[in-house]
């Protein structure tokens, strides 16, 4: 067993904090400890990856932050308020494992869904749709329907949708999990570029060690049964990261530490 992670001091620019967070699902096979005593602070502008095997609670943690699951114990704050208040203030954009675009709307129409719900004016909607589509390099596809696009393009459109209303926090739950390696590399690069230009705080769930190391400023390693944090790694990589950085000793060193953390959690 590893030493328990000491709860980190709250800094002035903490965006997401969790203290002694617990979540137990009651199932027919008895209680399942999805999250046990999770303590974590995510600061403004951080790119935080959550990595671990299935059932380690990484997705559950993100869903608690998004107020899609209710914790059974402990405290979570988002922008200093409860997840529910943060959700109602539209503090975050959420990207799911699948793009989940509405097939009866065009790509532009899909991005307008949150904007319409949030009551932006028509002119503002059109403006924002154009802007976020440029951001994810889909400006030629505004009038296309989702089923006319490839999986990678659909996922980019769903990222554009999450960006459209300018939330400071972006929560991404294995957004590239279903895509092939080449598309994934490309989207990782684009995501870093986007993070650089927008300065958003990003929470990113992944299965992939290289992806976590390449993208993150902070890597949270988790382990299952009960779901808990086994290691938090502060990346020493610079913020500017070309794809080749993955061949540097520094990168390999961090990846090694992540792998060690995962192995420990399994033992």
């Amino acid at each position, binding site marked *: 067993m590893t030493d328990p992670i000491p709860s980190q001091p709250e800094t002035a620019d903490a965006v997401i904090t969790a203290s002694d967070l617990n979540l137990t699902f009651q199932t027919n096979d008895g209680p399942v400890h999805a999250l046990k005593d999770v303590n974590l602070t995510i600061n403004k502008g951080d790119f935080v990856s959550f990595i671990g095997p299935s059932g380690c609670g990484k997705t559950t943690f993100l869903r608690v932050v998004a*107020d899609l699951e209710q914790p059974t114990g402990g405290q979570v704050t988002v922008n200093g308020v409860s997840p529910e208040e943060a*959700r109602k*203030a539209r503090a975050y954009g*959420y990207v799911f494992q699948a793009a*989940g675009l509405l097939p009866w709307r065009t790509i532009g129409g899909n991005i307008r869904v949150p904007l319409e719900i949030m009551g932006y004016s028509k002119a503002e909607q059109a403006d924002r749709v154009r802007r976020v589509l440029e951001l994810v390099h889909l400006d030629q596809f505004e009038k296309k329907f989702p089923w006319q696009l490839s999986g990678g393009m659909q996922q980019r459109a769903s990222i554009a949708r999450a960006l459209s209303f300018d939330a400071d926090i972006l929560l991404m739950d294995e957004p590239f999990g279903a895509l092939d390696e080449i598309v994934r590399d490309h989207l990782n690069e684009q995501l870093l570029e986007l993070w650089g230009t927008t300065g958003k705080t990003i929470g990113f769930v992944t299965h992939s060690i290289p992806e976590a190391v390449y993208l993150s400023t902070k890597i949270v390693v988790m382990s299952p049964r009960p779901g808990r944090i086994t290691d938090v790694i502060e990346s020493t990589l610079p913020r500017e990261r070309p794809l080749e950085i993955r061949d540097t000793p520094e990168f390999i060193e961090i990846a090694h530490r992540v792998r060690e953390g995962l192995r420990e959690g399994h033992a």
Partner: protein
Amino acid sequence: MMWIALALIVWAAAFALNVFLVRNKAPGVGYLVPVIFGLTLLFVWEGFVRGFGISPVLLPPPSAIGAALVSKTHILWEDLVQTFFKGALSGYIIGCGSAFVIALLIDRSPFLQRGLLPVGNFIAALPIVGLAPIMVMWFGFDWQSKAAVVVAMVFFPMLVNTVQGLQATEAMQRDLMRTYAASYWQTLVNLRLPAAMPFIFNGLKIATTLALIGAIVAEFFGSPIKGMGFRISTEVGKLALDMVWAEITVAALLGSAFYGTVALFEKRMTFWHPSQRH
């Protein structure tokens, strides 16, 4: 004998013509072939009925049915207005409309879901031959009682389909709406109703044929001296089978047109559904 021979010759000739047209990929062959086939069928029917001297009570020749369609157009039209526009269509709109509204209520409340679905099922299970005379007692001889029978017939299929359609969204899409802090109505309009459309149209399509059948059969149990069901039951009594067949022809065409219209709307509104993409 001559009629039978002629019928067989025309059959063989038309068959050969169709084969010829298909082999040569003549323009408009997709429409021409079924039309030729249909005309051949009518001609063979005519020839056999005449050639074998079949009693018109058993099977009138198409020419007699055609004559009835032409000479009694005003009666057929009056019957159609009475049965379709007054009885079937108003019952269809009331029945499907109320089923839709109640489906929305059921969807919001598990209590109603447990209570109302069995009641809907119960009404659907009532035999129309028992229901129709009761409706005539309650709502009178005119079209109102027919509309009531139609309401009872179309209500349940529409209700079940709509309720199921409203549950057709994925959990992820509902979560997405939640992350936008969307209200119940915003979620309904933007996500759940569009997703339910293929189901709703299934209900609407099934209801078209039920409505027409219901309105026609209900007239057997009392009606003013017009209406398709009334005409069929009285003309049978007079052994005027050509008129019965004329009414059946009108009902068949009408039913197809009604179904086709709804299917056309469906195609336009659910173009995005995998079953409609071509």
